[in-house]
Structures are given as C-alpha cells and as structure tokens.
C-alpha cells in the first residue's frame, strides 16, 4: 500500500515537473517583454478576416502584426507602397502586373509561401465565391479550379461582395514560377499596384484555409505571414498574439501582445494608470491633458487617412437648390472646430484627398472658405425662407461628433440656416429613406493611394451616397468610369479635379470638416511610435522596451 502511494506521489510529482519545467525554461530563455493594450473594440465582426472586418478598429489588430500583402504600406513613413511579400513588381501591360515573391517567407504554420498561396488567396474558394468580374457593365466569366474546402463551403455572402468591390475586374492570377505571379485585369487599370496594397489584398496560407473546419474557425485564427500569430481570440473580450519567430522581417521584439476589449474610456485610462496595460487606445482629445498630467504617460497619435464629412441629401426640398448646400459649406469655420474641440491636434485638409495620392494630389485645391457673407448671399439668392432642415445625428459614433454637430448648427444658424438635430441610434435609422433625411455625418478613407479608392468608391455611382439615394450627378458618374479605366495620368488628374469641383463646390454632395485623428496613451518609457493610422506597428524597428 505504501509503495503504491509513494509511486503515485512520485508519478504525480514527475508529471507536475514535466508539465511545468519546460515552460519555465522557455520563459527564462525568452526574455522579450509581453504587453497588454486596452482597446474600445477588437473587431466589429467578431472575426480577424480582412474581407469581413471592414472597420477602422479592425485595422489596429490586423496590421501590421498579422496580415501582410504582396505590396505593403510604410506605416511609420508616409503610408506609401513598400515591398512586403513581393520584392519587386513591374507592369507587363495596362492590364497585367508581374510580381516576384519574397523567398523564404514562412506562414504561421511553418509552410513556405509560394505562388500557389497567392493564387489561392485571390481565388473563388477564399475570396470571390460565385461572383464574376465585371468591367464597364460587362460580366466576364472566369474558369478556375475550385478546391472544395470546408471553410469555402460556408463562405459568408458578404465576403465575395467586399472582394469584388476591391477587385471588380480581376480576371485571374497566373503562376509564372514558384516565386513569380501575374495579375490579369479585364480592363486597363493604373491602380492595380494600389489595389495590391489595399486592405483586403493580403496573402493567406492555402493549407491553413483548407484544414480549417469552418469559415468562422479560419476567420478567428487565420494562418498568415505577419510577425505575430493568433494564440487565442475570444470575441468581445481578448485577442492574444504571440511572436512568430520565423518571421521574414526578423525576430519580433515582443513575446506576446494582448488586446483587451474595454468599452469605457475611463476604464481604459484607469487600466493604464494602474499598470495593467501599457497602452490605452481611443483616447478622446479632451482626455489627453489629464493623461499627460501624470509624467509617467504620454499620448501619441494624430491624423489618420480618414476625413470627417457632412453629407447632404439633395432630394430634401430645402436642399434641392445647390446654392443652399453651398451656403452650408461656406458657413463653417473649420479651423475653429479643430482648435476648440481637437486642441489643434488635427488639420483642415484640402478636400477629400490625401498627399499620399502622390502626383494625383491636387495641391492647389481647398475646402470652401469660411465666408458667412457669401453664405447669406447664396441663401438669399436661392430664396431660402428659414424652413427647418433636419440633421440626423449619431451620439458620438465619431470622436467629438455630438459637440461638432452642436457647433455646426450654431454656425449655420448665424447665416440663417434653420438646422435641427435629430438624434438617431444607428446607421440604418440615419440612412433610412423616410422623409426627413437632409444632413448627416460620415467619414471617408482612402484604402489605396488613388482617388478611385475614395471619391469614386464613396460618392461615385456605386458609392454609398448614390446607393442610398442621397445624391447623384450625371457628369460625376460619367467621369468616374473614366478615372477608373484611363491610363493617361494627366487626364486622370484633370478628371479628379473636376470631381472635386462637382462634389465639393458646384453640386455639393458633402463638405469636408477636418481630418480625423486617433490617440493612444502609453507609458512614456516605452520607445514606440504611433503610425498615422489605426494600425499599431510592433515590428523590430519600432520597439525599445
């Protein structure tokens, strides 16, 4: 009996030792720090799949820790295109781009990335489903190998729709050799390289996808190439990433990153101050002074690739006359909003465009100037009699949204516009076609470095404003097609300028208020720089613990 009990104890002790010692040894051997980050939201869609998570908050956890594309972004530079999983690329024709893949890239499951993974990433099983590419209204049939996968069988319907919006005319991806691929588009497109760098064009492991039991299982633990891999994802709670030590860009500087979902801003700041997290994201501008009042912490961040707009419904009886909408745009003192509500930490941009457009950026463009007298003149000319104009408003969906709306209403009132705020709970109430839709808020981003990604995508014939029936303009729709398909860069820039004239001056669809900004509070002693984006870069070059 004694022998039996002793052997049991020895066995249990041995098992305990075996289960704890190696872990301890690993922990001792890996002295990289682990960090925790408090975020308002980890993912709106409860997945980590770029083709389903279509929100700004998703960008934070998905880039640049997990997902990587053939062409990446210089997160800490000007967000320009940089080689990522492709080392070089060249144009074969107006419709074809050839890319050389980076050799030796390892997925999170240890597989080497090859041209097959690239083709699969852009294939029907993962991306396009049953949809076909279209070009100028023409449907192009595609014949491709359909590899039956369990995940592909329950591909959510919205995924192919998102993919087709990003790649409306992509015909096929051709394997030239193990490390060379060619992207064939159905129409001439100068933005193919830009599309390759956009959100949603990243590369996945073919084997990782095929082996997943369901699509959602895949989407919660995707097998990718980024410097960190998913260890645990509990939607609405926590995302735990661990270092991917075979990362092609060098050993990641952190052992583990935990994104903890903390909806309340005060709770996020308290977690930072109590030392439970090293970073607290989504800090409103009015809290920055309070956080930095404690010398242990600083707030980083600033403008991002996103502009705040006020949108108009030109079908509303008071807004049919473009002069009334133009009066709206001239009555806004945008700099006053930036100075008072953002403590000067953002800027008034040059209309709906960003400098990273490169030679497509219209440098001499500007938002309508603040000119109350001109606004009053336009209203008088239009015969506006002070009838009420509803302003459907969400409660701080955007940072500072409600105070901005209150300031705007007062500014509009100064010139004689009778704008009345109507609080709404959500987007479907805001966009509802019921009578009474006139003014509302929105924000626009540019997923890649060309105006096609923004002004056409959001205000063109397939954009949200026209799809919900708020606004439409025949000339805008005609030149949208030209901007998408023309390869004449000078003409394209001319067309883009004309679009700005139509949408922001002649027949206002919207007016830009200011560039958006995001702020992250962190421990001052951590050497880390925020990108001009939601994305947080924790690669080797951006960490000094």
């Amino acid at each position, binding site marked *: 009996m004694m022998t039996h009990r002793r052997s049991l104890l020895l066995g249990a002790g041995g098992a305990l030792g075996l289960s704890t010692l190696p872990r301890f040894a690993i922990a001792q051997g890996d002295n990289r720090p682990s960090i925790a980050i408090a975020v308002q939201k980890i993912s709106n869609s409860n997945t980590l799949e770029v083709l389903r998570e279509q929100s700004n908050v998703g960008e934070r956890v998905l880039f640049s820790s997990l997902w990587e594309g053939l062409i990446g972004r210089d997160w800490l530079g000007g967000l320009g295109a940089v080689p990522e999983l492709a080392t070089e690329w060249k144009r074969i024709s107006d419709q074809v781009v050839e890319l050389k893949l980076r050799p030796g890239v390892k997925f999170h499951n240890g597989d080497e990335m090859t041209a097959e993974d690239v083709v699969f990433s852009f294939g029907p099983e993962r991306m396009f489903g049953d949809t076909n590419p279209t070009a100028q209204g023409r449907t192009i049939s595609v014949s491709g190998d359909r590899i039956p996968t369990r995940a592909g069988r329950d591909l959510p319907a919205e995924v192919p729709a998102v993919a087709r919006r990003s790649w409306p005319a992509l015909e096929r991806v051709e394997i030239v050799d193990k490390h060379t691929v060619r992207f064939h588009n159905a129409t001439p497109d100068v933005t193919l390289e830009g599309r390759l760098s956009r959100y949603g064009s990243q590369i996945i492991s073919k084997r990782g996808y095929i082996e997943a039991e369901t699509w959602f299982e895949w989407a919660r633990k995707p097998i990718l190439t980024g410097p960190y891999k998913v260890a645990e994802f509990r939607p609405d709670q926590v995302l735990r990433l661990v270092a991917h030590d075979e990362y092609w860009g060098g050993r990641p500087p952190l052992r583990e990153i935990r994104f903890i979902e903390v909806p309340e801003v005060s709770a996020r700041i308290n977690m930072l101050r109590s030392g439970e997290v090293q970073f607290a994201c989504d800090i409103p501008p009015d809290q920055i002074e309070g956080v930095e009042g404690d010398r242990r912490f600083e707030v980083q961040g600033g403008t991002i690739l996103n502009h705040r707009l006020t949108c108009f419904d030109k079908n509303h009886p008071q807004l049919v006359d473009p002069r009334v909408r133009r009066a709206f745009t001239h009555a806004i003192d945008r700099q006053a909003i930036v100075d008072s509500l953002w403590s000067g930490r953002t800027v008034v941009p040059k209309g709906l465009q960003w400098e990273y457009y490169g030679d497509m950026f219209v440098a001499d463009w500007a938002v309508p100037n603040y000119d109350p007298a001109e606004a009053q003149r336009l209203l008088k000319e239009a015969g506006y009699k002070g009838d009420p104009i509803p302003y459907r408003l969400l409660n701080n969906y955007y940072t500072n949204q409600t105070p901005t709306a209150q300031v705007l209403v007062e500014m509009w009132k100064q010139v004689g516009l009778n704008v009345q705020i109507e609080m709404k709970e959500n*987007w479907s*109430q805001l966009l509802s076609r019921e009578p009474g839709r006139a003014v509302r808020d929105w924000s626009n981003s540019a997923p890649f470095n060309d105006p096609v990604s923004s002004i056409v995508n959001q205000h063109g014939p397939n954009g949200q404003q026209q799809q919900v029936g708020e606004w439409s303009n025949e000339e805008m729709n005609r030149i949208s097609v030209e901007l998408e398909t023309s390869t004449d860069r000078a003409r394209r820039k001319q067309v883009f300028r004309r679009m700005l004239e139509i949408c922001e001056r002649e027949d206002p669809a919207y007016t830009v208020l200011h560039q958006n900004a995001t702020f992250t509070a962190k421990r001052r002693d951590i050497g880390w720089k925020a990108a001009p984006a939601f994305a947080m870069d924790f690669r080797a070059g951006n960490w000094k613990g």
Partner: protein
Amino acid sequence: MLRFLSLRLGRSLLTLVLVVTFAFVVLRLSGDPALLIMSADAPPEAIAAFRRAWGLDDPLWVQYVRYFGAIFQGDLGNSMRDGRSAISLVGERIPATLALTVPALLIKLCLGIPAGVYAALHRNSLADRAVMLLAVAGFTVPSFVLGLLLVLLFAVQLGWLPSGGQESWRHAILPVITLGLGGAAVLARFTRSAMLEVLGQPYMRTALAKGVPWGVAVRGHALPNAAIPTVTIVGFMIGSLLAGAVVVESVFSWPGVGRLLVVAVANRDLAVVQAILLLVAATMITANLVVDLLYGVLDPRLRNGMRGTA
C-alpha cells in the same frame, strides 16, 4: 394548487411570447443588422449580400413566422455576427455572469437583511441613522459611479486590485462589491420598513403583554411576518441573476451575459438578443413562481388561499 400552478404556467408562456414578439418588432424596426454588423463603410453590395444571406430582405412578418417556427423546434438561431448558435454563445457567458451575481447576492443577503433588522430594532438610534445613511447612499449612487470610485481607490491609487478584465478571481472582487453594496442597501431599507411595520402590530403588543420575551417575539412573530416583502425583493434579485450586471460588466470589462446583450442589441444580432431575453424571462418567471410558493410557506393565510383556488 394544480390549477394555481397551471394558471401561472400559462401566464408565464404568454409572457415569454410577448417578450419575444416585442423584442423582435422593436429591434427589427429600429435598425438593420446588415448595416450595423458590416459597418456603414462596407460596400453596398456586401450589405445587400449579407441581407440576402440572413433573409433580412424578406417581409417582416415572414421573418417573424420563420423565427417563431424555429423556436418551437428548439432552434433559437445563429448569431449573425458570430456564426455560431445563439444559445451556445449565451451559454458560454452564463458562468462569467454568475461568478459575479451569485457572490453579490450573498453579500446583499448577508449585509442587507441583518442591517435592516438591526436598524429597525434600534429605531432612531445612532446605529439606525448610520445604517440608513449608508443605505440611502448605496441606493442612490449609480453602480457605474460606485464602480469607478472603487477602481480609482483600489486599482489606481492603492494598486491592490485589478481594474477590469476576467483573468483571475481577483478581477471579480471589485465588480462583486459594486453589485453587492447597491443591492444590500436596497434590502436593508426594505427589511427595516417591513420590520418597523410588523413591530407596531397588535399581535406583537399582545405577545409582549403575555410575557413572551422580546427576543422570542422578534424571532417567532416579527421576522416571519416581515419576511414577505423582503422575499419579494430577493425574488427579483434572483430573477435578475443573469442580466442584472449589464452596467457593472461594462464598467469592469467583464465578459458576461450583460455585455453580450449590450453588444448584441447594438448590432441588432436578433438571435442572441432573443436567446438572452428568453433566458432572463424564464429565470424571472421561475423566481416569481418560487416566491409565490414561498409566500404560502411563510403565511398560512396565503397557503389556505391557494388551496381555496385549487
């Protein structure tokens, strides 16, 4: 008794149907899940595809009939946001919520009832006033304010406890105290009022006049009679075990049923909201039924009344 139970059961089923119908109509008329889950920045084609895939483009009454038909087959549907079955999603969160609400209920009972009894027995004393002062404070300070104050003191200033999350038992301490103190204050006030009323009843005077010792009179006559309103409140508290921590779970980032409900309502994730509402309604109805039966145990007059209806 059987008739009493059948009536209560029938009424309970009707309540459940009304709860489900009301939630369906309100949620579906006040927001489009496709737009909320996919976000306003998603391409219109993606939003349309989402609607088609989940049958959201069918007429409302078709969706309602389909939903109800599925419920009768025991299928509460899948989360539009998560892809998994709503009941399993909710089931995963129940232990986390009970880990807060059950200890909080014990605090409420152990602190609130004795404090109320003590205050009533020492009416107008310093102790009575102190207990009532604390009870009023606990009753009126909203839980999110109390929670933040506790975090500031114990997490930020003293660094003794974590301020949020759910990684160890220590993370539960502040939310449990926040929930417990507010409820204890409510119970203390109700118990005191009930006790004071009973202590002034003629049968108490009679008992004391007959020479029954004070302690015996209190235990034998006052406490059982004062228990009825207290049991009613406790019944409500038990009924809200599953959804009574919505605010506290949000303040402390505690991943329980309450937080799931907030997220599901915001996204109009109908199946999940309905699963939670059904569960909460069922718990509340069961708790009320048990309270009704307890009335009979506590008060013989009511017991006889129930027999009378059988």
